[in-house]
């Protein structure tokens, strides 16, 4: 039999409930079921990984058979990996306010329809809302005798409104997802806001691209933190030589007072009670007062790279764990919002996020705002649309001039290595100097 230095098995059995309402029509409202297991074996060199449906984790014979099959895969690997020791432990899962399983599908559909209907303000031609609920029962065991199980419940919705006039089509969208209970009651204001934004964007201007001062709202500043710093601090990218932050621990990478944190233990949308390798999770300060202080690690990258905190391995159900963020944010500074606008004088205020992407090796990121406003003489002026921000990781963090005192977290999903996991990110309002703004306006 091939050598087995370590193995673990992670099973996730669960249900996904989706409700999709498109322009008042209930397109679908139903529940699907899955039961997936990932078996990893560390052979004499690297990992052999098996993915299977419906594994009986309590059957010793089945586990032995799977471990042996994974060990045969591991035998073809050439990269010698070791695992660092890491603290074990499981946090209590935050209590559920209202358990989504206690609410029947009909009521969920009715509540979602209320949000969708609220988006249909005058001028809006199309609305769509989706409810997503995930119930995951997770079981983990490894060859070192660690075992844990927990249940994760996620519930939330998104709503999109589209307004059009004279061939111009604009969109407003809102979403809210939580891990602490049922999240569809009294949320019509999200629908209304999506509708109102879509309509007001019809009159918005497209900004001219170029270098400007920019104020980022807490949601966009959160995505900026995630894309511009979070990914580049992930230990796997650092180990492979694919991050511009490699070898920079202890160096100043941002302005004084800048503190950037990833904290899987916060009861936000990226919460995990224990990581996907059975490692205890804790708050990790990636940047302390402008200095790069920690990478995010799993056991393998901690052993290879050092300088950081384990407990950041995450996986989508049915996929092997990789180093990922959870709840990522910039800590509050002391500037008030009005002070930030005033200090900006002339520039642009960017609000909300349509997502972003980073090339961490090149150190370049890009992301898009949902909309924004010109800032003229320190005050909010006309609305802008289709505006994005790009920059270089190593210079942008030095360009933060003011850090607000009004941090807010926003839920989302992060894609990496073909896997999508729930995360949250946030920040207070930020003032950036020399921001590269993309827009096709003349």
């Amino acid at each position, binding site marked *: 039999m091939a050598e087995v230095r370590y193995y673990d098995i992670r099973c996730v059995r669960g249900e996904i409930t989706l409700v999709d309402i*498109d*322009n008042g029509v*209930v*397109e*679908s*409202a*139903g529940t*699907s*079921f*899955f039961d997936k297991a990932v078996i990893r074996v560390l052979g004499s060199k*690297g*990992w*052999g*990984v*098996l*993915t299977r*449906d*419906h594994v009986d984790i309590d059957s010793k014979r089945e586990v032995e058979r799977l471990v042996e*099959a*994974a060990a045969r*895969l591991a035998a*073809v*690997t*050439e*990269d010698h*990996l070791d695992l660092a020791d890491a603290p074990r432990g499981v946090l209590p899962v935050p209590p559920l306010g209202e358990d989504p399983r206690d609410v029947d*599908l009909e009521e969920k559909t009715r509540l979602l329809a209320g949000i969708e209907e609220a988006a249909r303000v005058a001028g809006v031609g*199309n609305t*769509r809302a989706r409810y997503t609920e995930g119930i995951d029962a997770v079981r983990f065991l490894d060859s070192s005798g660690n075992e844990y199980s927990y249940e994760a419940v996620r519930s939330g919705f998104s709503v999109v409104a*589209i307004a*059009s006039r004279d061939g*111009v*089509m*604009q*969109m407003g969208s809102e979403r809210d997802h939580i891990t602490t209970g049922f999240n569809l009651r009294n949320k019509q204001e999200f629908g209304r806001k999506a509708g109102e934004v879509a309509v007001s964007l019809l009159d918005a201007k*497209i900004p001219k*691209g*170029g270098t400007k001062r920019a104020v980022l709202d807490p949601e966009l500043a959160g995505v900026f933190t995630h894309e511009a710093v979070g990914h580049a601090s992930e230990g796997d990218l650092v*180990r*492979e*030589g*694919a991050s511009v932050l490699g070898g920079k621990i202890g160096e100043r990478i941002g302005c004084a007072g800048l503190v950037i944190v990833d904290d899987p233990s916060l009861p936000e949308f990226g919460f995990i009670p224990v990581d996907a390798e059975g490692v205890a999770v804790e708050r990790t300060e990636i940047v302390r007062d402008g200095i790069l202080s920690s990478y995010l690690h799993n056991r393998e990258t901690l052993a290879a790279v050092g300088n950081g905190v384990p407990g950041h391995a995450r996986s989508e159900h*049915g996929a092997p764990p990789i180093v990922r963020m959870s709840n990522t944010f910039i800590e509050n500074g002391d500037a008030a919002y009005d002070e930030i606008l005033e200090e900006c004088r002339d520039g642009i205020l960017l609000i909300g996020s*349509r997502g*972003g*992407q*980073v*090339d961490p*090796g*090149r150190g370049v*990121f*890009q992301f*898009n705002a949902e909309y924004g406003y010109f800032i003229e003489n320190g005050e909010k002026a006309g609305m802008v649309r*289709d505006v*994005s921000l*790009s920059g270089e990781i190593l210079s942008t963090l030095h360009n933060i001039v003011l850090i607000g005192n009004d941090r807010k977290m926003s839920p989302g999903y992060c894609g990496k290595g073909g896997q999508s996991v729930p995360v949250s990110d946030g920040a207070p309002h930020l003032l950036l100097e020399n921001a*590269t703004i*993309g*827009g*096709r306006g003349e």
Partner: protein
Amino acid sequence: MNGDDLIERILREGERRADEVEVFYARGLSVATEIKKGILGNAEESEAWNVAVRTVKDGRIGFSATSDPDRWKECLDAALASGRLATPQQWGGFPKPADLAGTPSAADGDLVVAVEDAARMVGELLSGAAEHPVEVVGGGADLARSYLAVANSSGVFYGMDRTVAAVSLETIREQSTGYEFDASPFLADIDARSVGEQAASLAARSLGGRDIKTGRYDVVLSPVAAASLLGQVLLPALSGRNVKAGRSFLADKVGEQVFDERLSVYDDPFAPGLGSTAFDAEGVPTRRLVFVEQGVLRRFAYDLKTGYRYGEGSTGSAVRFGSEGPGIGVHNLFIDGPQVKEPGDERAIWIHDVVGAHTANPFSGDFSVEISNPFWMEGGEPVEPIRTAMLSGNVFEMLGGIGGLGNDSRRVGRLTIPSIRLNNQQIIGK
């Protein structure tokens, strides 16, 4: 219980409780090898199994799926329960058995799903990359084989095999990165060594790029960059559902000249490709669909539900991803037209890829993205790297007047597309 028995059982049980029932079944085996630190790091093998059930009762469509064979009854119950909540609609029944019009080209009889073969492809990727002074930071090779079946209570029972061979490689030199990939149903199509060489060449040649001033320039989007932007904007605009819901820029424009007269857009489900198939994801025979012919918009894509709802009829365009229900998509989409060796030989900026294509506005077509591996191009050849910049524009306007198409068509996922020259585009420098 094998797949066919299970399908029959769900159909029989479902028919008792609904007007109609449909089963979509998929099982697959795949291996993946992942490169770490320039050598083979992980080896992975996946076995997957999935059943998706749709029921129809009084025009109400229910759906559920499961990856657990023991829960098929629960899954059928859940489909019926979800159908009770769906808004009833015009429905003309699941398709009846028909002669399939063409032969798909989606499976390679010689492709073996073996980790040793994937490991050999990794060796070829790495030997290609070794031709340039770069570090390999990631990538890998995958081999997969799957079997799909669609069956319904009207007597349809179609099955097919699919195979996939895929490679990718990611390289770096200082702060200059390169990424290349290829995927095909046919192992012989994949030249892993050349993919490795290309990925390394991009990183090596992009080193030392110079800044560029903000302004308007002629650009050439490589097939990869063009596929990223168009995939994000053009595909949703061709969906009949978005058209009827008022979410498509192209709605109400059938018969109009919407794009440059050199551009045609068509779906060929019988061409070799990752989406090649003779029946769609709900058992409707597929056919060649011309969406845009020499710039004139001809039609949109429909599935059964949208087709019945609006009296348009299905175009055989239903697709499924993962364990979700069917939606409208494309099988093998071609963007084509008269191609020249060099898409215009005037000096231009050649753009290999873009960062953030998914942030484009799918309704308006507006985008501004960071560009990857841009070069000054002269006489059709990239000659001098540019450091970094953004490209801003509107996909629909761009396609309204192109500067020409290159003769370098390649497959990028389900799209086959050449490089596209676009004159006078907005570039934002640093």
